[in-house]
């Protein structure tokens, strides 16, 4: 059974470790596990001290705490509300609670142009480790790393690190990747769609968003075609903004009214699409579904929340705490997927799947009961297989045994191929089921 596509699990892991992301992901598992235990078992060292008191000499054993780790965070938005920054702050609290011997502090709502000043002030406050959480902070982080060789820096969502060779060795980068979750979301979408049309509200045409769209559409086609024998049809609306509820609204409405889509996924930083789906479901008599993105948004669409993609940054942060705290720093370029940082990465039977729970850095929110039970089980089975990278969305298997073609009909993935890190990272084409063009 492990001989899927003629390649064994072990062999695949060995092959994939040739790919940068694969090797990092594998390293991350080991590192993460170590991080869990080292972080938790950091016992205070006992020091014996002799004190000379007037009455004579008394020897006492004083417990001297090991140096307390200081970690500073730079956030792009306010921490109070849900959203990208909220997720990072939850991750910080998660890591602090497990590491314990740490003081963490943050500066919120830092404009990207002021990142360097914010990083400097955290260093001045004594931070040993500074974590910056917006793509736009990347160059400032590298600059600060060059200025403070004795301190450590982690940048989220960029591509500069000592490991990648384009930043000092005291800088690492990290990101939690969603395309597998989007594929699972697609499976759920195709399992409930009545119209056979799915829509996507997307912020900017960048490779990250393009691969999420493709993964979602591949998943939706998989389940829809298996159900009905017909291909899924997908439409994409670009809003060119991360935060504009008004634009996201019009984009979602157009997908529902114009394209007849009844499941809407999105990559932008508000739950507007889910709110619109809820509005059409409850007030305009049109059953429409949507998802959570980055945080649990189910409260914004009580009747229309299908599943989604949620991130838990905590284990990544804890791993860096551990590296700095134990003096075992190495520059890494982390890109986590399902399975990474999970205490037990090994696959379980679908019935006992951990899908739906917080496990590792990614969470598939509970799938709505409207999804038929055989598809619920299929989603769990795929989730479990993804833990061990036994199943990859961008493969012939992920497309019902057919090669993956782009919109022009050109075959992109065939035979036993899988998308590698480079293909995913540079994706600039849509799968054939997407009918919208990609703006260039």
């Amino acid at each position, binding site marked *: 059974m492990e001989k899927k596509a003629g390649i064994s699990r072990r062999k695949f892991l060995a092959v994939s470790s040739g790919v940068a992301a694969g090797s990092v992901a594998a390293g991350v598992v080991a590192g993460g596990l170590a991080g869990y235990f080292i972080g938790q078992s950091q016992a205070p060292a006992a020091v014996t001290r002799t004190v000379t008191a007037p009455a004579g000499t008394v020897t006492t054993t004083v417990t001297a705490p090991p140096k307390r780790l200081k970690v500073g965070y730079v956030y792009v938005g306010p921490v109070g509300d849900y*959203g990208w920054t909220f997720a990072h702050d939850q991750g910080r609290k998660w890591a602090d609670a497990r590491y314990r011997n740490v003081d963490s502090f943050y500066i919120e709502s830092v404009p990207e142009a002021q990142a360097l000043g914010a990083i400097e002030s955290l260093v001045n406050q004594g931070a040993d480790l500074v974590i910056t959480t917006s793509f736009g902070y990347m160059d400032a982080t590298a600059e600060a790393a060059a200025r403070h060789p004795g301190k450590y820096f982690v940048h989220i969502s960029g591509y500069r690190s000592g490991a990648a060779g384009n930043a000092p060795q005291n800088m690492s980068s990290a990101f939690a990747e969603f395309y597998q979750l989007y594929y699972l979301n697609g499976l759920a979408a195709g399992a409930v769609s009545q119209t056979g049309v799915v*829509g996507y509200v997307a912020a900017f045409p960048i490779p990250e968003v393009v691969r999420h769209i493709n993964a979602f559409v591949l998943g939706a086609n998989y389940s829809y075609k298996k159900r009905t024998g017909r291909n899924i049809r997908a439409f994409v609306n*670009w809003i060119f903004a991360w935060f504009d509820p*008004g634009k996201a609204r019009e984009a979602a409405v157009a997908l529902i009214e114009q394209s007849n889509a009844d499941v809407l996924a999105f990559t932008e*930083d508000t739950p507007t699409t889910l*709110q*619109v789906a809820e509005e059409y479901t409850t007030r305009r008599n049109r059953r429409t579904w949507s998802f959570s993105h980055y945080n649990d948004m189910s409260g914004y669409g009580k009747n229309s929340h299908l599943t989604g993609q949620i991130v838990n940054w905590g284990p990544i942060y804890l791993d860096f705490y551990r590296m700095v705290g134990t003096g075992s720093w190495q520059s890494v370029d982390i890109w986590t997927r399902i399975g990474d940082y999970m205490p037990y990465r090994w696959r379980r039977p679908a019935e006992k799947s951990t899908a739906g729970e917080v496990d590792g850095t990614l969470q598939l929110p509970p799938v709505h009961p409207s999804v038929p039970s055989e598809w619920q089980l299929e989603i769990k089975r795929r989730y479990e297989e993804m833990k061990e990278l036994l199943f990859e969305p961008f493969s012939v298997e992920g497309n019902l045994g057919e090669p993956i073609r782009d919109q022009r009909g050109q075959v992109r993935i065939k035979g036993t191929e899988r998308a590698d890190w480079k293909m995913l990272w540079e994706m600039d084409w849509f799968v054939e089921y997407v009918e*919208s063009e990609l703006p260039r």
Partner: protein
Amino acid sequence: MIGIGFVESVLAGAVAAGTVFLLASLGETYAERAGVLNLGMEGMMIMGAAVSYIFTNALGHGAALLTVLLVGLLMGLLHAFFTVSLKLNQVVVGLAITILGLGLSGLMASSEIRGRIILALNPEATRAVLASQEAPKLPLIPIAGLKDIPVIGPMFFNHNFLVYLSLLLSFVMWFLLFRTRFGLNLRSCGENPSMADTLGVNVYLMRYVSMAVCGMLGCLAGAYLFIGYQPFWVEGMTQGRGFISLALVILATWNPLRAVLGAYLFGGVEALQFRLQVLGIAAQLPYFLLMLPYAVTIVTLTMLSLESVRKRVGVPAALGVPYSRE
């Protein structure tokens, strides 16, 4: 694919998206007709959005809208105090009010402060309400009989009451401005305040009144954007819509009825661009369409700097000039 359904959907979207611009530009029209340039519109709008968000969650729609009007009134009077009484530069004061509004709204609506405001007003508010970044939307009030007329029905008669109110206001405000003594007095303050003064018009009072109206409508526009259109709070969610309304006033040549057309035109661009995208027409067009409202704004402002254009479109002659009695 382009049938009557498409047209109906675009036009209904145009009215829904355009009402934000309409409410704001009606207010701005009165301010500018009286000679006060209000660049604080963006700040007033976002304050309206923030207040409607917080107060709807605390006390419901009615109390929220009243508070929005009150806040708008205060912001309008604040602007008038600086520009009319203290005779400060209107551009500087307006921009200051925009910056104030953007900052204050973000502060008010931050989870900590908004939670305290809601709890103070309504001690029974649940945790879920305190944490929520949305608020209940204004109910749709379809007008029986009229809403089933093709095209016109979905376009005008299947909205919430603020849309109907804005349409009604544009007629009423046009009538007041051009058919009554009050309107003549108000316009004379923008054309030739010293002449108006010698004829017994209280220029200061007129300008205060028009700024009060402008502030209230500006905040109401923000409230519509939030509880009437898309109820989700993010900092800076107005995204320049206040400034777009300023350009709209000029495009409508300071006429409330023409503002209706202009507002729906701008709303139509917002609705149309996404419907064209999914139709696959001009896939590379989004960049162009997204830029359009801003481009129109820049072009109208540039054209207005030409003396001949100013004369032809009838810019209030004393617009932007503080009046002081000699």
